[in-house]
C-alpha cells in the first residue's frame, strides 16, 4: 500500500480527538453514547494508527466470536472504546470508536438470554441421566460454554 | 450512446473531417491564385529562399527590442497564453495519449499539478487578452465577431480542461465529454476563422521572409 505519511496527519488526528472529547462531554452530561465509524472516514492508515497509539490501552480487552472474530478494547481514556469487527473470512468489516460506559454489543441480548434460560434445565445431572447420557458421569471434560446440544 | 461516447465517436470524426476539408479548401484557395513571376536579380549577399523563410518564421516569435516598450502588454499576455497552451498540449498526459494514437509518437509527460498551474496562467492570460481587446481603442476598432468567437472556442477547452483535471462538477465522464465537445467546436471553426493563423503564421512569415531575403532587406 502506498505510504501516505507525507499527508499532514496531525491535523486529522487532532480533529478526531476534539470530536471524541465532544462525545465524552455529552456522555458525562447527558449519558448519551456516541460512535465514530473510522472505516467510513477517508483516513490514511498512518493517521488511524497514530490516533490509536495516542489513545493508548485501558484495562479491558474483549474477544468476541460471533459471525467472525471481533476485538473490543477500552482505550487509555475510560469510556472510549476501540472496536474491530471482522467477518467469517477474517476481513475487517467495521472499526469503531465507541464513546459509552459499555459497548452495546457486550451486553447479552434479552432474546439470547431467554433462549439460554430455556436450555439451562437440560444441563442438570438429573436431565442428563434421564437422557442416558454418560458424558457427565465420566466427569472428565467440563462442558465447553457454547456447546449447545 | 452516452454523451462521452458521442463526443469520442461520431462527433470527433465529423469534426476531424470538417477541419481537414476546410483547411485544404482555404490553403488551396490561397496558394492556387496566380503567382506573378519575379524577375529582379536577388541581392548577391542574400541567404537563400529557405534560409530567408526560416529566419522570419523564427525571428518573428520575439519582436525587435525597439518595439518592446509599446507592445509589452500584448507580447507578455499572448506569450504566456501561447507558451502555456503549448505546455498543456505537449506536456499533459492525456494529450500525449491522443497524439500517440494519431501519430504513434510518445514522450514522457509532465506531472498533472504543473499542468493545472499552467492552465490557470493560460486562462488568466486569456481573460487579460479579452479585457484588452474590449478596452483598447485600436483593438475595439479592428475586432470582428470572429475574434470573440475564436477566443471563446479556445477558452472553453482550456476551462473545461482545468475543471476536468480537478474532476469537480458532474464527474469525470461528463467533464471529459464537454472538454472533447468544446475541442470539436474549435476544430470545426478553425479553418474558417482566425484560428487558421496556426498554419497561416508559418506560411505568411515564410512568404515575407523569402521576398525580403531576396532584397537583402530586414526580415
Amino acid at each position: 500500500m502506498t505510504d501516505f505519511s507525507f499527508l499532514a496527519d496531525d491535523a486529522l488526528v487532532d480533529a478526531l480527538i476534539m470530536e471524541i472529547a465532544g462525545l465524552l462531554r455529552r456522555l458525562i452530561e447527558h449519558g448519551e453514547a456516541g460512535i465514530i465509524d473510522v472505516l467510513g472516514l477517508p483516513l490514511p492508515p498512518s493517521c488511524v494508527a497514530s490516533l490509536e497509539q495516542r489513545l493508548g490501552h485501558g484495562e479491558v480487552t474483549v474477544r468476541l466470536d460471533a459471525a467472525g472474530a471481533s476485538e473490543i478494547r477500552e482505550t487509555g481514556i475510560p469510556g472510549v472504546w476501540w472496536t474491530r469487527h471482522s467477518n467469517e473470512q477474517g476481513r475487517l468489516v467495521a472499526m469503531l470508536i465507541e464513546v459509552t460506559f459499555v459497548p452495546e454489543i457486550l451486553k447479552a441480548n434479552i432474546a439470547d438470554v431467554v433462549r439460554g434460560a430455556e436450555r439451562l434445565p437440560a444441563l442438570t445431572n438429573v436431565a442428563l441421566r434421564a437422557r442416558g447420557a454418560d458424558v457427565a458421569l465420566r466427569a472428565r471434560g467440563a462442558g465447553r460454554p457454547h456447546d449447545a446440544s | 450512446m452516452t454523451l462521452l461516447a458521442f463526443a469520442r465517436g461520431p462527433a470527433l470524426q465529423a469534426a476531424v473531417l470538417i477541419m481537414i476539408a476546410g483547411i485544404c479548401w482555404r490553403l488551396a484557395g490561397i496558394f492556387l491564385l496566380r503567382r506573378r513571376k519575379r524577375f529582379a536579380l536577388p541581392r548577391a549577399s542574400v541567404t537563400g529562399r529557405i534560409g530567408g523563410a526560416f529566419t522570419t518564421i523564427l525571428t518573428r516569435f520575439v519582436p525587435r527590442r525597439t518595439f518592446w516598450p509599446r507592445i509589452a502588454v500584448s507580447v507578455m499576455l499572448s506569450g504566456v497564453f501561447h507558451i502555456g497552451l503549448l505546455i498543456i498540449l505537449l506536456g499533459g498526459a492525456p494529450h500525449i495519449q491522443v497524439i500517440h494514437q494519431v501519430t504513434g509518437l510518445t514522450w514522457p509527460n509532465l506531472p498533472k499539478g504543473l499542468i493545472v498551474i499552467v492552465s490557470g496562467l493560460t486562462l488568466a492570460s486569456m481573460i487579460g487578452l479579452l479585457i484588452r481587446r474590449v478596452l483598447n481603442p485600436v483593438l475595439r476598432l479592428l475586432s470582428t465577431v470572429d475574434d470573440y468567437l475564436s477566443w471563446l472556442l479556445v477558452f472553453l477547452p482550456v476551462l473545461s480542461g482545468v475543471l476536468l483535471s480537478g474532476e469537480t462538477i458532474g464527474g469525470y465522464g461528463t467533464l471529459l465529454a464537454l472538454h472533447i465537445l468544446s475541442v470539436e467546436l474549435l476544430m470545426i471553426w478553425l479553418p474558417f476563422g482566425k484560428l487558421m493563423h496556426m498554419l497561416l503564421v508559418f506560411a505568411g512569415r515564410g512568404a515575407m521572409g523569402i521576398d525580403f531575403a531576396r532584397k537583402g532587406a530586414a526580415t
Partner: protein
Amino acid sequence: MSPDAVPPQPKAPPSPANGPDAVQVTKAWHAFISDIGPTAALALESCVHCGRCAEACQYYVQTGDPRYTPIHKIEPFKQAYERRSGPFAFAYRLLGMAPKVTAEELETWQELIYDSCNMCGRCSLICPMGIDIASLVEQARHGMFDAGLVPPDYLGAIAEKEHASGSPFGLTIPQFHDLLHDIGRKHGVVMHVDEAKADIVPTLSSIDVKTYPASIAATAKLLNHMGASWTFRTDGFDADNVSLTAGDRAGQRKITLAIVQAAISCGAKIVLMPECGHSFTEMRWEAANSFGGELPFRVLQITELIAEGLTDGRIRVNKVTEAATYHDACQLSRRGGATAAPRVIMAALGLDLHEMEDAGDTNWCCGGGGGVALINRAQPLRDKAFQIKQRQVDATGMATVYTSCSGCRQTLEHGGKAANWNKTVASLLERVANNLKD
C-alpha cells in the same frame, strides 16, 4: 467571369469632381484584387487583429487615433478580397458576411490610404504574422486610382502630368536637355547628355531638378571622377515615378519602361538611381517584372555605387573632420536592404557618425515618403511625424543630419523650417562630390 467584372482598360484617371459612383467602386475593388497572388492572399487571410502594427506606425503613435492602425487602412479592400477572390468568397457573398464596399467608404478611406501612410513598412516589420502591410496599401492605391480617388491636391495632379508628359513637372525633352547643360556650366562640370553609347545611365529625381541642382552636378562630377562612360538620357530620366505612389499602374509602367528602353538603347551596364527612396524600390525590384524578364543591366542606388567605388579604389575621397548623424530612407534601408552602403561611405570620409536611436532597419519615417509630401492637407500629419525625427536627431546632439534621399531631405528641411529647428540637412552624395581626391 464574376458577374459584375468590368473589362479594365487603363486610361487617364477620371476627374474625381463628382465623387465615386458604383462603376468606380467596382473598378476600385477590381483593381485591388486583380493582382493578388498567394503572398498577398496570405497577408489578407492571416491578420489576427492584434493591433501591434499601430504601435509601429508614426501616425498612430503621434496622434493616438485608432483609425491610423495600418491594417485598418486596407479594411474595405480586404472585404472586397473576401467577397470576390478569397477561398470562401461564395460563402461571404451568400451569407453577406463581408459587406459590399460602398462609395462613401472609399471616400473616407482616401485619407487613410494616402495622407496617413508613407508605405514605409515599419508596420510590416512588427507584424507577428509576417503581413507586408505596406505592399497591401500600395495595391489598395491601385484601386483608389482606378476609382479616381487620388487626393487631387496635388499628388493626383502631378501623377496626371507625369503620366502625360513623362516628368512630374511637365518638362519637355528639349527644356530638360538645356537644363542639364545649364547645371553643368553653372557648377563647372562636364555634362554628358543623350550620348549614343554609355556604360552608366544615371536617372534624376525631379526634387533635385527643382530644389537641389547641386546634387545633379555632384552626380556628374562623381562619374567623371570615376572616368566611367556615362550619359543622362532625356528619353528616360524621371526616377520619381509619382505614378507609383499615386497608384497609377499604367503610368508607373510607362515611366519605368522609358528608363529601361533608354538604358538598353545605349547599351548601359548600370542604371544609377539618384538620392531617392521609392525610385530605387521601383527600379531595382519591380522594373524587371514590368519588363517581363531579367533586366540586361544592374540597378544601383547612388550610395551603393559610391560604396563599391570606394572599396575598389575607383573613387578616392579626402578625409573630413566632422561629426554628424544619418537618417535612413525607409525604401533604401528597411525595404531596400542598402543600409550598409551609407555607413561604408561615411567611414571612408572619416565622418564621426553618431547613429540616432532606431537607425537602420527599424528607423522612423521622415513623414514625406510615399507621395505624402505631395498632399497639402497631410501637412499636420507630416509635422507630427517630423517631431519624432526631431527628437531623435536632437538626442544625438549633432548639428548636421545626412541623408541619401532628396524626398527625406526636403521633408526634414520643411519640417525644420516650420519648427525653426537649427539643424542642417545635407546630402551624402554632395558631401562625397565635394571631397573627391583627384
